[in-house]
């Protein structure tokens, strides 16, 4: 698979480490009342869709950026690549 890095252009997927579902960005608040249930959900449960899947890839052998790759899990076609930083900010994760 070739991942079209937003800054570096096309890169072999071998340069990356796969982390998993995009929702791993959205770490729950450990101090909240519902933290136990929220962390069970966050750590262990997955949508695991057949089709478009937004997922985190780490460019370990490159610029060490985290990317959000939208990929079809049935065909391996890569539909969209974004910087995880931008996605996290748009989700309100960054201050």
């Amino acid at each position, binding site marked *: *698979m070739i991942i079209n890095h937003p800054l570096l252009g096309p890169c072999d997927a071998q340069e990356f480490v796969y982390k*998993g579902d995009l929702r791993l960005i959205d770490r729950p608040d450990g101090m909240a009342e519902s933290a136990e249930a929220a962390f069970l959900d966050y*750590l262990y449960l997955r949508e695991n869709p057949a089709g478009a899947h937004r997922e985190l890839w780490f460019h370990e052998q490159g610029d060490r950026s985290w990317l959000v790759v939208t990929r079809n899990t*049935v065909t*391996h076609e890569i539909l969209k690549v974004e910087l995880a930083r931008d996605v996290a900010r748009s989700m309100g994760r960054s201050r």
Partner: protein
Amino acid sequence: MRYSGFSVIKEALTGHKGWRPAWREPDPQPHYDIVIIGGGGHGLATAYYLAKEFRQHRIAVLEKGWIGGGNVGRNTTIIRSNYMLDGNEPFYEFSLKLWEGLEQDFNYNAMVSQRGILNLIHSDAQRDAFIRRGNAMILNGADAELLSRDQVRREYPFLNFNDARFPIQGGLAQRRGGTVRHDAVAWGYARGADQLGVDIIQNCEVTGFRIENGKCMGVETSRGFIGAGKVGVAVAGSSSRVMAMAGMRLPIESHVLQAFVTEGLKPVLPGVITFGAGHFYCSQSDKGGLVFGGDIDGYNSYAQRGNLPVIEDVAEGGMALFPGLGRVRLLRVWGGIMDMSMDGSPIIDRTHIDGLYFNGGWCYGGFKATPASGWCFAHLLATDQPHPTATAYRFDRFERGYMIDEKGMGAQPNLH
């Protein structure tokens, strides 16, 4: 009809005109006591043991395509019980014992061959870990034998004993491990179940569950509604997709694992070998091809095919261990979809929905587990209690902190 040496000779002398289809092709009835979704090894084994050992009646197995067309036909056919943890080892040893009597039990030649499995040791730390694992196996009634470098060399002289980076220092052997003709397992269980009155319904895709007041009343299928007292799901690889129809999310990701077979060779490899420094395992089929595999590709996939980097990695592992492979041509490469669970161990449990039971999360160890998985799932379906060897395979182990993590990798499915 019962298969025997006599029946083979009789048919040979009469032009093979007496063979009958090994199972029926029934139309679905409107209601069954127990419906199993998934006509793979685990689903068919479950139906077989439900009928045979637990005396249940009115059972159906629903299969989207043809039986045995999924992972039971795509694996590398290895059986073994060399696990370490208490939650796992009794279960896998139970499975190996069932393999040992399987062919006589269901009267079908599954070509169970206990040719032994050898896990190679390449460092002092690995030897310590393997001794510990071997002791855990022996404590649970399995067999394990630590081999020195010279003993390994006598049995497998063609391995690379000159590898300076990953020297072979010995191995942990399980002599009762081996290989089985994988398709014949599905066919044998299907035939056995069919003879006990189980309806095996192929080309029947489940499209939804009918759940009323927290109870599962049956399944919607491409061949109409089928009512059921209990529904058991055994569809590893597609577990998340099927259980999503019941509104459940699972602690599972689907990943692709590739397997390989070479052109046929004369007998070269007596048993199953695994490389301890990389990820490579290999055996020789009775047809002569070397059957081998390695790591999963590592990203979520439902594609039933992988990519080239893993093929290269597996080939490198093979060459590092077994340099003679270099001139052998690869015949086929294929992929299967694994239910990779969050701790690398399976789930056989009730769900929060009455009458809906789940069996899945087998990672890439499902084939060897087929008989015990079927037996334990049948036990759960018939008695509502987990089988004594499968009490740890619960949904709530993640919540309660009782993970069964053989490799100690944590909740990262692509590392198990």
